[in-house]
């Protein structure tokens, strides 16, 4: 797939009109990371319900269209799901969410940054170490 196809209206729309953007107060989970090579930054804040569901999921950040749209879509996807749901979340899920099958080594990190942040936050909340739980090199930068 050519990279211009990635910027289908959908992604551009999320880039320009990000859903769930901005601080979420109060929150139970707050995690943040950046991609040092390109400067993309993502912070995710979550309100957790009594029964362990992600009731509200917000993000803040700056960076390229792919990182920002991907973060925004992910907040929508995660909202209402149980915390455990993040454990099974994979690179493939993110690509599917973005409506693409491949992004190439340069841009895949942009797309996966928000997943990495989400997992880091949720695992920390659950008291597990993120490294053990994710087990995948792909989400590292």
């Amino acid at each position, binding site marked *: 797939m050519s990279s211009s196809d990635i*910027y289908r209206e959908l992604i551009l729309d999320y880039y320009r009109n990000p859903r769930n953007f901005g601080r979420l107060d109060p929150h139970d989970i707050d995690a943040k990371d950046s991609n040092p090579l390109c*400067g993309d930054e993502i912070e995710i804040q979550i309100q957790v319900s009594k029964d362990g569901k992600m009731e509200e999921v917000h993000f803040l950040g700056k960076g390229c269209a*792919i990182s920002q749209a991907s973060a925004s879509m992910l907040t929508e996807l995660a909202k209402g799901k149980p915390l455990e749901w993040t454990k099974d979340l994979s690179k493939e899920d993110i690509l599917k969410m973005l409506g693409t099958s491949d992004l190439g080594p340069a841009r895949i990190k942009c797309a996966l940054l928000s997943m990495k942040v989400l997992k880091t936050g949720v695992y920390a909340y659950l008291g597990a170490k993120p490294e053990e739980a994710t087990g995948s090199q792909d989400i590292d930068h």
Partner: protein
Amino acid sequence: MLRSESLRVDEIRKDFPILQREVHGKRLVYLDNAATTQRPKAVIDATVEYYSQHNANPHRGVHQLSLEATEAFEGARSKVASFINASTEETIFTRGATESLNLVRYGWGNSHVKTGDLIVLTMMEHHSNIVPWQLLAKQTGARIEFVGLTKEGKLDEDHFERLMGQSPSIVAFTHCSNVLGTINDAARLSARAKRAGAITVVDGAQSVPHMPTDVRAMGCDFLAFSGHKMLGPTGIGILYGRRAILEEMEPFQSGGDMIKQVHTTGATWNDLPYKFEAGTQDSAGAVGLGAAVDYLNSIGMKRVRDHEMALTAYALEQMSKFPGITVYGPMNAKDKGGVVSFNMGDIHPHDMASLLDEEGVAIRSGHHCAQPLMELLDVPAMSRASFYIYNSFDDIDALMQALSKARNVFCL
């Protein structure tokens, strides 16, 4: 605008194997030359020949290969020395501009800079000409001031003048900015800094490859540059240092080849330039750099500069006609090297580089190792197109067409 090329780009392109390849089915339009340039066949062949015929350690051996290697290595040094009008004793091989600057930090800075001393840098420096001085300042208790920029992206001369009034001990500045392209008047700044009592460190990484260089005329104490930005191999660079100052300096790295004698109780240093070249030399790198210098000389640095100036003028003209593009730095090609940094609408440079790549156009996106400048200009990142001898007006047309496409994709 006249599209008159002062170089026969078609002929030159034939010398560069990589320019024959395609990217995503498109002709490769390589516009990332400020990051690294490509290698002509002459440089690749020189490396191959060295390894296939003469490879040995220079200087120490008596056997035939070692003599040939010494000749090749020191021959390369002579070529580079003449290229910048220095003597061979003043021409030190390093791994690159970054190591050259670190050599000055450790070799001169550690033993000369004291608490309260002033180090003057500029807001358009590359990280390699910032961080070594920050670490030196932290270690010694010196302080750093950054000369500001004008709206146009030139050095704020008044600010520079005011700082010279404070008798700095080091003044380090780039000859040509890798982001704005701004060319600083290295001779004038060096002379002024000298009068103020400072040593002058010129970062020539973006100037030596692109215009005639004469360290005597420049009058600086040090000049740092990299081979890979001037058609040479990766992993080799140069520090020029004025002889008198090199002689009083401490070595930086130590070990084999930079010593005269070693005893269990201490050591004495070899003559210049060897005092600063510890360990086995990168002889193949030096030989490749020598071949690159030959290649550039066969074109002539004056013509290299003229060619890039023509390309830059054309690019600036095209970009200023293009809706939604912001160009950073001087808008007159005479004032800048072949570097054009820009942004377009809300397209993040990272996305921009991807979109152009798809069209075969290779540019650089990001902070360009100049985060303080990004902060000053209040942009997180920029796209940058940068030119060299094998670029043509057609390449700039290809860039502009790719930019049109990007605008369409982003519905600007």
